[in-house]
């Protein structure tokens, strides 16, 4: 493959960070940045030929998918609690900056889905800017994703960003750091979907390379509306580390290539929905020579936890409470807890809203930050038994089961209806025997 030529895009200033103003001399970033492809007489490797005799240790924090100002999903609390929760996402970002400050990392990579497009408020942007200003000695790279595409009407394009913050645009960019023998390569989403993989030009030379981008890591031939990143293509780039964003579940894998590229999704640093339970982390990366090591560090302000407690055999709400305490004994109580009451419930056991509120109160008294109880129990009716009964209960069960067969897509709702009907019929009847 012929070598690509690079175009010199600007000197001494960085993309959107300039924001129309003449920037001061940038102390962090090198004076030359290249875009792919171009017809510049310079070459990627040529740009990286300075000061490489000793490979310095480089550190970074890699995060993504914070979704600041995104409306809450599946929130179970009150409106006001929800607003407090939104503040906690900011708090999490502050904690990330605290960590960067504490660890004195060389780079901070934010691999997209950071500032929610079409919703992010000015105060949030200001908050982010203020936080970023706290770490002027850390070069910050933001690779906007499908939730915050780098469009002309996005906050990235319209706001002024600190000098040490580089926001990638739609085309691949390479930012060399000769003093560190590192080149950061990245790109951004410019739309809500990007279905085609666009490969960066092949990279050669001795510089250590880190890729920062938002996308879906796929196997060859697979597709995705969110910038599919084929593993084989990624392997060809021979990067030391690929900082990805998009998948909220943390994961990493080492590619089988010469560089042993480490591809990593840091996961969302703060839970965005009830699937993202437990500890939420960012990645603290270290590159010594060409060896990359990562460590996951919890940063969440408050975790989401889901616990199911089997209330079978509980006759009273006090017994249910006891079962809950037993089921949550190992849990950090400073969390948002969804407590699902599961199992076969005694028909006489009331788990209606009043009881659930009482239980939630008791749990709060016991130190739980926020608890929402969900009744997923099924009344302990023996459907086999009723199905065989000659009376109306038997008839009802048979009809409901028939309907569930006919409308399988409504199974959950119909099952609920079945138990409601049985409860209506039987729970209030005095049974003599």
């Amino acid at each position, binding site marked *: 493959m012929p070598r690509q030529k690079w175009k010199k895009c600007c000197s001494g200033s960085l993309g959107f960070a300039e*924001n*129309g*103003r*003449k920037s001061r001399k940038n102390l962090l970033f090198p004076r030359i940045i290249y875009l792919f492809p171009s017809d510049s007489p310079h070459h990627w490797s040529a740009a990286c030929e300075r000061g490489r005799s000793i490979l310095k240790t480089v550190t970074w924090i890699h995060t993504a998918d914070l979704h600041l*100002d*995104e*409306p*809450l*999903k*599946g*929130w179970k609390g009150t*409106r006001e609690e*929800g*607003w407090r929760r*939104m503040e906690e996402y900011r708090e999490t970002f502050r904690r990330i900056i605290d960590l960067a400050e504490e660890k004195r990392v060389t780079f901070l990579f934010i691999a997209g889905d950071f500032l929610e497009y*079409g*919703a992010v*408020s*000015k*105060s949030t942007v200001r908050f982010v800017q203020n936080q970023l200003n706290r770490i002027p000695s850390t070069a910050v790279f933001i690779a906007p994703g499908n939730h915050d595409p780098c469009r*002309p*009407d996005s906050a990235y394009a*319209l706001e002024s960003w600190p000098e040490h913050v580089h926001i990638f645009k739609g085309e691949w960019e390479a930012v060399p750091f000769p003093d560190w023998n590192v080149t950061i390569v990245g790109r951004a989403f410019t739309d809500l979907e990007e279905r085609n993989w666009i490969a960066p030009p092949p990279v050669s030379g001795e510089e250590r390379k880190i890729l920062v981008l938002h996308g879906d890591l796929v196997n060859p031939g697979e597709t995705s509306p969110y910038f599919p990143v084929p593993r084989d293509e990624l392997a060809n780039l021979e990067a030391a580390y690929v900082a990805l964003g998009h998948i909220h579940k943390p994961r990493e894998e080492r590619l089988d290539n010469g560089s042993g590229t480490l591809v990593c999704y840091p996961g969302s640093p703060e839970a965005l929905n009830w699937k993202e339970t437990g500890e939420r982390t960012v990645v603290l990366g270290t590159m010594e020579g060409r060896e990359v090591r990562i460590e996951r560090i919890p940063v969440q302000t408050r975790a989401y936890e889901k616990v199911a407690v089997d209330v*079978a*055999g509980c006759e009273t709400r006090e017994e249910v409470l006891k079962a809950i305490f037993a089921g949550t004994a190992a849990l950090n109580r400073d969390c948002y807890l969804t407590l699902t009451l599961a199992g*076969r419930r*005694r*028909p006489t056991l009331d788990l209606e809203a009043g009881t659930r509120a009482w239980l939630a109160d008791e749990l709060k008294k016991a130190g739980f930050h926020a608890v929402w109880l969900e009744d997923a129990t099924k009344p*302990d*009716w*023996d459907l086999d*038994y*009723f199905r*065989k*009964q*000659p*009376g*109306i*209960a038997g*008839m*009802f069960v*048979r*009809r*409901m089961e028939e*309907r569930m067969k006919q409308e399988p897509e409504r199974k959950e*709702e*119909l099952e*609920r*209806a*079945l138990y*409601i*009907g049985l409860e*209506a*019929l*039987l729970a*209030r*009847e005095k*049974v*003599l*025997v």
Partner: protein
Amino acid sequence: MKLERVKFRGFGRWTEREFVFGDGLNLIEAPNEAGKSTLLQGILALWFGPKKEGVQTRTKAEWVDRYLPWNGGDYGGEIEYRISDKRYRLIRQLDWKQEAEQLVDLTEGKDITQEFAQDSRKDRLFLERQIQLSGESFRRIAVLTPGAAAEGKKEKKNNESRMIERLKRLLFQGEDLDVRQAFKWLEERLSEIGTPRASTKPLGAALVRKEQLERELEQLRAKYQQYVEEKQRHHYFLTQFCKAEEEQKELEQSFYTIKQKAEEQQRMEILQKELQHLAVERRALEEMIRQREELVEALDLLKKEKEVHQPPHLITYAEYYEVAEKLRHKNSLEQQLKEDAYRLEQLDRSIEEMKERFGRLLGMEETEALDALHRVKELKRIHERIGELKGHFENGEAGGRLADLEQDLSKLEELQKQEKEWHQAKMQVDVKLAEWTAQPSALSLFRPENAWLAGAAAGVALSLPLLWWNPLLALLPLAGAAAAGWYWWKRGEEERRLRRKRLEESESLKREARVLADRLSENERRQNTVLEKWKVKSLAELARMQADLLERERQKEALLQELRQLKELAAKSVEESRGWLERFLDDVPQFDAALWAELVESLISQFRRAKTELKHLQMERVLREKERKEREEQLFRVQDFLKRWEQRTGTTDLERIRHWLERSEMVRKLEMKIHEEENKLVELDRRREKEQWEEKLRECKEKMLENTKAVEEWSKKPVSRVDWKARLSEVELEMERVNHRWREQKENLDRLEGSLIKLEEWIEDLPKKETEYALVQDEIQKWQSERRALEVAREELEGAYRELKENLGPQLAPHASRWISRVTRGRYRELLLQSGGGLEIGVFVPETGELRPVEQLSQGTIDQMVFALRLSLVQFYSEHTGVHLPLFLDDCFVHFDEWRIRAALELVAEIAEHHQVVLFTCQSREREILDDMGLSYHSILLA
């Protein structure tokens, strides 16, 4: 299926107790609290076990703890029963923790427990599988309790239709389960959630909130869009602004370079101008030096001329005019002093003459004169008053008139008194006359005495028929008539006597009246005479006239007194006035008030004139004397001045002084000129010293030389040929233009930033609102899902109920009809189901052939029908399961009357032919009736 034996090892009160049951009817008669219900419960417990039915997890039935053995020990027992030809023994340990069960086939003598597999609850369901009914179903079908069989009386009080509902439930559902409660509960749950339109319920409220949030979000999103657009514009303007700023800086740099060149050029131009200025300055300095030298020469010449014109005394114009004036004044004063002396002599003479002429008059006191004048005028007035009074007395009336008047007045009073007395007498006479003339007529028919006449006539009239009938009896009315006639005649005589007497008295009174009238006429005439004399009309008027005459007499007396006093006063005043006049007049005339008044007034007038004239003369003299003294003083001062002048100058010759004045003036002019020139010289010297003319001149020459050299060097350079100032102006213009653009961009930016700040405030809540919207949507989804589930439950429950009703009812109806016919002894034969608008129940009445709705039946009949229906259910399910189910009647006839018990027991006996019946009762009625009816039964004693 038949129950043969029950043995409790421990169940409630029963410990190691066995009960044996026979085929057919079993009667268990025992009082309350004897253990009947425990026995029934124990039978069911041993058959179906201690687990709760219908639940998946192994759960204790509610009764388990209630029937723990009273004496402790094992909880459970064994029960033997027969199904078809097979006999079984079911052994159970009911202890919840050590539950155990065993089924033995007694027919074959083997344990068949393992033939029944355990279910998820580890229950083998022996009996359930053998009879295909659950324990609960068996209980519903085969056990009739008081609550289940008849609550007739209680319900009758509350609601009779409830029994009919029960009848319907049994017929249509095959069980006594009230589905309406379930529907009601479902409806309540649905109502709690509410419909989408019910905004007070959770679902409706959430939908309303959602709509509200949608509206708010629409606005917020529009604002956000506007914000983004404005932000883009802001970005564009910011770029433009930065460009303008860059251009501005470049221009500023260029401006400073050109400005330096222009300033250098400007400096050279200034040097050239300075050179010109230095040349002028040099010339000026040279001219000033020359002027000074000329001034020194002119000053010497003036001083010499002044010495030539100098006089012996320097005289000023003021001095000259002052001396001249003093000389003129001196002459004038001397002339005036002469005139003053002459006039003073004249005045002294005039004053002497006046004093001689009016010496006596001038001694007059003006106040006394005025008093005298007043007295004379008063005297004149007194004399006039005396004259008036005298004239008045001469015209006065005679005093005899008053005495005459008083006499007539007394006479008239006397006459009026008499008139009054006579009038009264006449009135009395007239009254009496009137009384006499007013006496009633003697001929009046209605007089009382006429009654006696009528009585006499009536007596005669009565006696006439009596005479014919009984003459003796006729004497009585005749006697009465005679008495009445006598009395009538006597009253008539009396009347006539009185009439004559009144006539005589009347004549006497008339005469008396005429005498009195004559007297009154005479009296009136005499009064008129007196009144005409005094020309008055009444006695009162005459009395007023007398009062007037008395008043006039009093006034006349007072005037006489006044006249006497005036005459005394006049005499005294005349003497005083005469005394005063004699002081100033030699010959005082005879008293005449007018003449004396004129004299006094003339004297006063003369006195005033003389006094005024003398005063004028004296005042003029004083003034003249004063003026003369002043002039003498002035003359002294003038003479003093002239004397001093002469001592100073040696002369008072005005011509000579004038000559000196002219020479003095010339000298003064020269002095002034010299002074001016000297001042000029001083000024020039001061400037010369200060400005250092000679030094400056030298420096000027040196600088001119230096500047000339620098200018010559600059003009040799090529930059000197460019007009840098013009270039600077051009750059300034360009800067102005760029600055203008910069300001415009800045204004645009500021405006946009203002707008953005507002928009930022507005859209700040957008994420929160989006979150809230998501929450509301979740809530709506939750409520809608719950509502759908409830609706499905209700729908399917209704469907199940309908299906059961449509299927079971028709199947059960024939059985029910048979038993109803039996229980009502043929009165109602057939139970019919009608399906118009829902299933309705009716019974066929054979006598009339009509179909009667059960609602029209009596309460007792309905109770019977309910009982019959329970029997038919047992029969119905027995047919379906193939097992003749036993029937347990637990005190269920307690509310039946004897007739109904007989009918029911008849039925029980009939059904006992095929089904084992266990009848529990607390009273002996059932046993007695059974004995009475000759029905066989197996009696079981509990005691």
